[in-house]
């Protein structure tokens, strides 16, 4: 029986607004903990009636951390609706911009959002457990982290003219060509970015060695895994088919994003504005799966760039070749993806067609319906539009990266609360671990509720009659 409730609000060092409620029983143990996503905006509704070519400008406003993902998913949906294949140069530039975003988003998350828990400790004073505290503890690393994020943001700027909410991709291609000066400018930052990422990888490996007991009891559970792959089942972030594997890594599906409605569905719970996608054939909740860095490395057989592949081989041995199901290894997987993204930047800058002037295909053949897909930093992003022949949208359906991880984050919150939160005197550090379970997934709640924006943490302790008897906020 629930005797008290702890509320953590807001959950900090994540994007958006959430809160956690922890319901305690009479013995002072956790009965159940919930992860509530507490905001809804309604892009799917208010984009009705807009023109298809406006969507790459409107939908980035779903999320300022990964606007490039929405920008490109919207443009890709537009390509299909208008029945037009972008020229090779346009695809190179779009992917280049996307790699910039993976680098900045992952880099910021590891060093500036999650880093304080790992470097300063879960139990560090909350007043300094943040990026400013990191500046004090390790200024050299913090400056490197700032530079890594800047490197990624600058790629977006060089390609698309703005660091946040660029105006670049359009149905059929992109709106301006690249230059040798910009190429050389980006190339000059690659070595340092790789070095910083390798420092991060060493840091997480050392941390994992020292904290292996925690890793093995911190939200470890089975799910399926889901994301884009190349035709050879290599890691893919920009374009491809979607692969779904089961908890043991066996393939369940490999399908075109155009058919996603046949494969997955979304479940709604009363206590969250964030929906819960699942694999239809297995049903709710048996068909839940995870996306994002851990999900992507678990569906991939290999990575197509040398440094990332070398690290992937180490990752792959964590669970003897089976999917890695430890929530805290998301951090390691995220860093391996940064390595890949930086190496991919170098490959793309080396493409002979990078500087081509043929950047927009205008031979439209109207199709009317299309699904744009991309691997956003946090997982698979789907934009599905239905348009009238004049290009005006009639309906819009969005399934956003963080949503796919909703069941997993809820499970992680419940599991970590049960493992670490003990009454009657609940300590702040216990609650920070619950938040850290959410943080590992790097949720983007604005994205996921397109829809959501708020993920704060406040903990209320509620007695059996429903009275709040204790509220813990980190204040």
């Amino acid at each position, binding site marked *: 029986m629930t005797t008290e409730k702890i509320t953590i609000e807001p959950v*900090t060092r994540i994007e958006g607004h959430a809160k956690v409620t922890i319901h305690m029983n009479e013995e002072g143990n956790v009965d159940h903990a919930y992860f509530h996503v507490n905001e809804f905006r309604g892009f799917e509704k208010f984009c009705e009636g807009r023109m298809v070519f406006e969507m790459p400008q409107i939908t980035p406003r779903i999320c300022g951390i990964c606007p490039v993902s929405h920008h490109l998913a919207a443009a890709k949906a537009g390509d299909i609706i208008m029945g037009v294949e972008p020229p090779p140069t346009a695809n190179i530039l779009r992917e280049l911009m996307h790699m910039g975003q993976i680098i900045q988003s992952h880099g910021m998350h590891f060093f500036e959002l999650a880093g304080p828990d790992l470097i300063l400790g879960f139990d560090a004073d909350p007043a300094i457990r943040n990026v400013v505290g990191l500046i004090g503890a390790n200024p050299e690393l913090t400056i490197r982290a700032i530079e890594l994020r800047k490197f990624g943001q600058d790629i977006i700027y060089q390609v698309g003219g703005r660091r946040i909410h660029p105006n670049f991709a359009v149905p059929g291609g992109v709106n301006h060509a690249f230059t040798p000066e910009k190429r050389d400018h980006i190339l000059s930052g690659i070595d340092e970015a790789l070095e910083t990422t390798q420092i991060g990888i060493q840091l997480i490996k050392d941390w994992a060695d020292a904290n292996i007991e925690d890793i093995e009891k911190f939200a470890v559970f089975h799910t399926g895994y889901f994301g884009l792959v190349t035709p050879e089942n290599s890691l893919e972030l920009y374009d491809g088919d979607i692969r779904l594997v089961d908890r043991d890594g066996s393939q369940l599906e490999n399908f075109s994003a155009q058919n996603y409605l046949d494969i997955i569905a979304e479940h709604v719970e009363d206590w969250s504005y964030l929906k819960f996608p699942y694999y239809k054939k297995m049903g709710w909740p048996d068909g839940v799966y995870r996306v994002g860095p851990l999900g992507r490395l678990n569906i991939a057989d290999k990575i197509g760039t040398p440094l990332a592949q070398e690290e992937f081989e180490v990752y792959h041995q964590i669970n003897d070749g089976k999917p890695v199901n430890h929530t805290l290894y998301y951090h390691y997987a995220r860093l391996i993806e940064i390595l890949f993204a930086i190496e991919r930047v170098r490959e793309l800058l080396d493409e002979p067609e990078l500087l081509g002037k043929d950047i927009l295909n205008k031979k439209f053949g109207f199709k009317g319906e299309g699904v744009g897909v991309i691997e956003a930093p946090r997982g698979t992003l789907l934009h599905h539009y239905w348009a009238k022949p004049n290009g005006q949208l009639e309906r819009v359906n969005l399934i956003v990266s963080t949503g796919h991880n909703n069941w997993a984050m809820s499970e992680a919150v419940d599991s970590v609360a049960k493992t670490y939160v003990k009454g009657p005197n609940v300590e702040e550090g216990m609650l920070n671990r619950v938040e850290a379970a959410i943080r590992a997934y790097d949720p983007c709640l604005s994205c996921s509720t397109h829809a959501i924006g708020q993920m704060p943490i406040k903990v209320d302790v509620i007695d059996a009659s429903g009275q709040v008897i204790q509220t813990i906020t980190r204040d």
Partner: protein
Amino acid sequence: MSKPTVASDWLCGCAGCHMSLLDIDERILQLVELVDLRATPITDLKEPDKEGVTVGILEGGINNTANEEVAKRMRERCKILVALGDCAVFGGVPAMRNFFGAESALKRAYIEAESNDTEGKIPSSPELAEMTRVHALHEVVPVDLFIPGCPPNADVIFYALSELAQGRIPEIKDDKLHWH
């Protein structure tokens, strides 16, 4: 003399204005010399200090009861309230919802969406905020400084914060009003 304190939060926005704040890059080291960063989405304090802060910054408009509470608390606890970015200044892109109303947007997302299973319903737990019309910040609480932009440029944000830290109210006009 103690440093001026700054708290911030995001409401009905996209986090892009806070990202643009981080786009000041290494100048963040100068900023933390000038001001003491208190409760923000990237630090672990949960709300602005009860004793008050010098500058409160809010990104995003107000589209539900939780946003409204956060805005009012920030107003009560800060000397100077800054509306950062288009959503806070005039409602921005999310205010397009006002053409349809919150109810029809909720119905579209949780009941009608093609990917929903047959058990779609509008979430309604008492733990969740209630949706309202989308408002600009100044429609709900008095605002002292408006910084428009989607997002405002990092240089403009740095300029504004540096001025505020030194006790001056910056003027956001002319070259400070550019969109890139």
